[in-house]
Structures are given as structure tokens and as C-alpha cells.
């Protein structure tokens, strides 16, 4: 909790925080829409990555502008670092598991680096929505 005399800079920081929070929340919302509306696994994964990196960074910049303390900024930076380290690994593993269990249609792929490593099990025809 930081108490600063209200002035030009604190007002500016609050307005910036509001803008960043709104942008981050909008990206999170777009991920919700994408994960519900998109038709297959890879498209849904594409939608999920938006709030995981950019949306999170925007939200946390908003929080940092609002809190205005270096302790909080350090912890928020730690959150971003963890997220940047872990989300590509998780996405890679989910995508590879989807490929190997036949949930990725081969005609969707531009580059196929996984088949030479180990051929996928025969594609499973999941009903595609719309």
C-alpha cells in the first residue's frame, strides 16, 4: 500500500493503469470467445496464447502502475518470466500430444517436423464444429 499525494503523475498512472487493465481484460475475453468458437485443437491453442502472454503482461503493467511499489513490480516481473518460460513448453506438449493421438488433421499443417520423428497414429476423425 503506497500513499502518494494526489497530483498530476498519480492521476496519469491511474489512467494508464485503467487503459492497460481494460486491454488485458479484453484479450482474456477474446481468448474465451476463441476457445469456444474455433473449430479444432490447434486453432483453440492459438486463441489461448493471447492472454497467456500479452494479456497477462498488459494486466500486470496495469497492476504495477496502480501499486507503484518496487516490491510489487519485482514479483509481477517474476510472474511474467515464469509465464514466458512455461507456456511455450505446455503448448508444445499439448500440440505434440494432439498430433500423436490423431487430433491434428495433416492437411492443416504447413511444416510437419513430427512425422519423421515418429509417424502419428492414424488420424481420428473428430467431428468438426461448424
Amino acid at each position, binding site marked *: 500500500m503506497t500513499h502518494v499525494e494526489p497530483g498530476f503523475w498519480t492521476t496519469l498512472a491511474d489512467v494508464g493503469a485503467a487503459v492497460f487493465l481494460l486491454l488485458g481484460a479484453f484479450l482474456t475475453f477474446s481468448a474465451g470467445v476463441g476457445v469456444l468458437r474455433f473449430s479444432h485443437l490447434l486453432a483453440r491453442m492459438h486463441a489461448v496464447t493471447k492472454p497467456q502472454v500479452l494479456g497477462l503482461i498488459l494486466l500486470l503493467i496495469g497492476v504495477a502502475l496502480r501499486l507503484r511499489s518496487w*516490491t510489487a513490480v519485482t514479483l509481477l516481473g517474476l510472474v511474467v518470466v515464469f509465464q514466458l518460460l512455461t507456456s511455450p513448453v505446455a503448448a508444445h506438449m499439448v500440440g505434440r500430444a494432439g498430433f500423436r493421438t490423431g487430433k491434428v488433421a495433416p492437411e492443416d499443417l504447413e511444416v510437419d517436423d513430427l512425422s519423421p520423428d515418429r509417424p502419428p497414429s492414424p488420424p481420428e476423425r473428430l467431428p468438426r464444429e461448424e
Partner: protein
Amino acid sequence: MIVVVVVATALVAAAAVLALVRLERGPSMLDRTVAFDVLTTTIVGAVAVEAAWSRRTESIPILVVLSLVGFIGSVTIARFAAREPEEERRIRTREEVEAADAAREAAREAARAAGRPVPPIVSAEPENDDEERS
């Protein structure tokens, strides 16, 4: 600020609801994993909005923990993702369950009559351990 917080909370909550709908629909385990990632991210977003609103720093460590726990969850599920054949994905009807029970009882009766060891009752089909694990 209150208007911004309300709008941001509404957007994040709407995202959580949409992710829950996808979590329920599936159709595969990996789709649910992806939806669960969105749900984790919305929780992070909600906690962030709350921290920005109340200007308290106590909830920041929750964000650190959540960003790690979500990762562990999705990696674990992806690790053990297996093919789900069409037949196993649906719930059997009452008639099919009764037919399977009758067939099993008949087999046990036949074994008992012939003096062979009676097969034990198993609740489900034996799992295929040759299932592909990635």
C-alpha cells in the same frame, strides 16, 4: 476507476464462462486442457484486477503460484493423453449394460458348471496398456 474495474471484471468473468462451456463440451481431453489454461489465465486476470482495485500487494504471490500450477496441470494431462476411441467416449445405455452383465453372469455360470475357476467380476473392460503414450 470503479467503471474500469467493473468492465474488466465483466470481461474476465465472461471469458471464464466461455472457457467453462468449452471445458464441458470437450470433445477431447486436450481441448479440455486448453480450456483449463484459459480458466487459469482468467483467474490470474481476476486476481490482478482485484489487486489493482484494492491496491493491496498481498495477492501478488497468488499470481506467481497460479502461473506455475497451470503449467504443471496442462503438461501432466498432455503427457498422459491417449487415444480415446469413439466407442469408449460415450456412456453406455441401460440395455447395453444389462446385456454385458448377463453375458458375464452366463460366463461365470458356465465356468462354475464345468468346474473351471470362476472369472472374477471386473467393473470395466481391461485397459489396453499398449496405448500410445507420448
